[in-house]
């Protein structure tokens, strides 16, 4: 294994590495990120390896398990280089065809290509797929090209060039200045200018300073950091080392949630590799700069994503946040100046040093430079990770990249910012996504979770869901959060059960103000946001639940009744067979009816009624139509109905 003592050593090694690699040699990249693994990617990878061995082709064709390219809905994803042909939902059985047709005969396996749901058009190259075409994947783009377990692969795509450049020709202040000029704002949620945060620590008194990677990624629905940390751990590490250099820190931490075992494994390995290559430790690349990193696992607490709670956890204590009257970049971990930034923020740093702040500021908007990786999930056709320049409209993300809502359902809202954020309704779809535009709309960027909701989503239930989540995750120290959210949870639950009262909305707003103004930390202060934003944009839903005991989205179990439309029922019996409560009455050639007394509102009948009949209906706010009298339930053949 090589060891670099100078930046020149590194560059020489890189040149030799590249000259030994043939860019025209076929290489099959199989994504082995957690998402594709859950869809069977490791079996696909094994199938490739086995088949290549069987055909004696291991020397001619490379195959590697790579980082996540983001198109998780269609995994396992396989990209064949050098042509960049992208195959989706690949199964082990497809391996033989891919090898014989694509690798050997340079032909495309049609059935594995992306097909546009609307036009039916197929796309061959990764870059042609609409999901990718509108993205600008400067940070996450390398994932599919590298084996996440190989430092050499990272070097082959230009890795650690920024570090070499910084340590050979830039002072710490110059690195800091470049990051400041780039206007890089924190990608974890706060959007605080990273350069200013670093400067605060650099200038703070004292010799001991810390740099920390926040890889706790607790927002449900967000998995960008997982893909980055798993897929390209060295990019994050390089950013951290550059940050440590700029700030004057000798010790760094990566705080990863233990729910991401693959990310923990990959970053731990990356750190060991970096140490042995001389990129971490004493006198890095002969610059006189010492720096090392420790991995620290989270133990299952959303609140530990909050910076002061995270630092408290690093000290081996419960994750109870501390007041931030003195910022943690001045007094943080162990009361020392500590720079804590999100995984994606750190991953942007090597790019900024390599290509310069001017390049970075050309992407994005005036107030928000660069790109942002979003996890586009929920009721959307193309689910996955998307990296887009700041300033792109929500509409473009949802319709051009996401290809719209499945099942021809109507878009209702998109939730951004996780439990601290808010919902953006259809009327605001032309909003240009950046930090300030989202806050002005009553939401926030947050870590990048973007959850799409359609006409079947109840917005009161969304508010209840987030408040309930936060009551579970609250550390419990302060009254506004522990007690205030508890009461909000009770009230919102009552409302979804049809037990809403006059005065509930006012009480909720009172509790919301108490939490926003008086809570100890950002979790408590931002907790009311989902409630406040849904109230702002969907007040009619709240009022329908409280006054009419009606759920407009036909979602809240206690407020929805199921009935069978006698005009549509053909007596197939599917609902009767599947009903777990024996609440369906009917027989052959008889219209089936639901006994409302026995019905548990589980929704199974609705799920199993064949699409061509769609006879099971939902109704809310009023009683379902009474069933036809027994003697009128014979199904008359259409031809007989004259």
């Amino acid at each position, binding site marked *: 294994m090589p060891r670099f003592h100078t930046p020149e050593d590194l560059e020489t090694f890189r040149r030799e590495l590249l000259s030994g690699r043939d860019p025209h040699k076929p290489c099959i990249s199989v994504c082995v990120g*957690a*998402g594709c*693994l*859950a*869809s069977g990617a490791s079996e696909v990878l094994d199938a490739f390896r086995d088949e290549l061995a069987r055909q004696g082709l291991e020397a001619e064709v490379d195959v590697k398990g790579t980082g996540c390219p983001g198109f*998780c*809905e269609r*995994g396992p994803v396989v990209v064949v280089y050098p042509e960049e042909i992208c195959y989706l939902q690949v199964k082990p059985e497809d391996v033989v065809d891919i090898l014989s047709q694509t690798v050997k005969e340079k032909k495309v396996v049609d059935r594995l290509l992306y097909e546009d749901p609307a036009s039916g058009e197929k796309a061959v190259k990764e870059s042609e797929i609409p999901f990718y075409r509108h993205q600008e994947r400067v940070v996450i783009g390398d994932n599919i090209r590298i084996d996440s377990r190989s430092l050499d692969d990272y070097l082959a795509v230009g890795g650690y060039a920024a570090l070499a450049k910084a340590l050979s020709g830039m002072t710490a202040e110059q690195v800091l200045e470049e990051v400041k000029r780039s206007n890089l704002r924190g990608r974890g949620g706060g959007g605080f200018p990273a350069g200013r945060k670093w400067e605060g620590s650099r200038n703070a008194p004292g010799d001991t300073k810390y740099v920390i990677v926040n890889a706790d*990624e*607790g*927002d*449900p*629905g*967000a*998995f960008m950091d*997982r893909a980055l940390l798993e897929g390209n751990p060295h990019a994050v590490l390089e950013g951290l080392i550059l940050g440590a250099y700029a700030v004057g820190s000798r010790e760094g931490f990566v705080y990863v949630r*233990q*729910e*991401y*075992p693959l990310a923990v494994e990959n970053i731990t390995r990356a750190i060991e590799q970096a140490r042995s290559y001389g990129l971490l430790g004493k006198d890095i690349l002969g610059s006189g700069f010492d720096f090392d990193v420790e991995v*620290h*696992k*989270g*133990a*299952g*607490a*959303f609140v530990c994503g909050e910076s002061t709670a995270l630092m408290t*956890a*690093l*000290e*081996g*204590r*419960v*994750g109870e946040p501390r007041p931030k009257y003195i910022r943690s970049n001045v007094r943080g971990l162990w009361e020392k100046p500590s720079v804590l930034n999100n995984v994606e923020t750190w991953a942007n740093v090597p790019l900024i040093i390599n290509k310069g702040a001017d390049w970075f500021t050309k992407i994005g908007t005036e107030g928000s430079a660069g790109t942002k990786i979003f*996890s586009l*999930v*929920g*009721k959307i056709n193309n*689910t*996955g990770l998307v990296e887009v320049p700041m300033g792109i409209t929500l509409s473009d993300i949802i319709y051009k990249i996401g290809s719209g809502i499945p099942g021809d359902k109507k878009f209702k809202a998109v*939730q951004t910012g*996780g439990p601290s954020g808010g919902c953006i309704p259809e009327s605001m779809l032309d909003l240009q996504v950046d930090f300030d535009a989202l806050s002005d709309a009553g939401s926030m960027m947050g870590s990048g*979770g973007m*959850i799409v*909701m359609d006409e079947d*989503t109840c917005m009161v239930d969304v508010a209840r*869901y*987030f408040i309930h*989540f936060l009551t*579970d*995750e609250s*550390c419990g120290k302060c009254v506004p959060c522990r007690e205030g959210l508890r009461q909000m949870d009770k009230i919102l639950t009552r409302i979804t059960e049809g037990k809403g009262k006059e005065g509930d909305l006012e009480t909720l707003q009172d509790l919301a103000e108490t939490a926003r103004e008086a809570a100890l930390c950002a979790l408590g202060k931002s907790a009311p946001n989902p409630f406040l934003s849904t109230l702002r944009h969907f007040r009619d839903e709240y009022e329908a639940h409280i006054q009419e005991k009606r759920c407009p989205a036909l979602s809240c179990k206690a407020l929805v009744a199921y009935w069978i439309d006698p005009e549509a029922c053909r007596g197939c019996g599917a609902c009767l067979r599947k009903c777990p409560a024996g609440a369906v009455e009917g027989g052959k050639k008889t219209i089936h009816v639901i006994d409302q007394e026995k019905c548990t509102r*589980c*929704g*199974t009948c609705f*799920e199993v009624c064949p699409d061509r009949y769609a006879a099971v209906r939902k109704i809310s706010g009023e009683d379902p139509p009474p069933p036809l009298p027994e003697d009128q339930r014979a199904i008359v053949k259409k031809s007989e109905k004259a």
Partner: protein
Amino acid sequence: MELGPIDGIVERYGCEPSALIQILLEIQKENHWLPGEALDRVAEKLEVPLTRIRHIATFYKAFSLAPKGRHEIHVCMGTACHVRGAKRVLDKVQEVTGIRPGETDLALKFSLETVNCLGCCALGPVMEIDGKAHGKLTTAETAEVLTSYE
């Protein structure tokens, strides 16, 4: 219980109190739970108050003060999964196993927990058993997957 392995874990972390959470995570992984004697031993070796250790062991969801089942079921209740029907999956799991989140069945076969996001949001609703994720679950498939475990 054997205190030797506990001592080994603590010593590997240099008997540093700041590594408390990491130490407990390892003990949890080895034993599938945190026996009281283990907590007492850690308190002794690290010279930290037992109250601090107990608070940590109960504050963080990764720890269990009661023995867990052979198979750990984690049903994701993250937003993306919620919107795609995670509650129905959870209801089904409860029905089939007879336990609620936080519980272990009497035969020590299954333990059930809800988790707030496994990071496989594109495959929602997701249920993870013994670290293996099962995605895009319908209620029928949920029951099927569970019956395949001994």
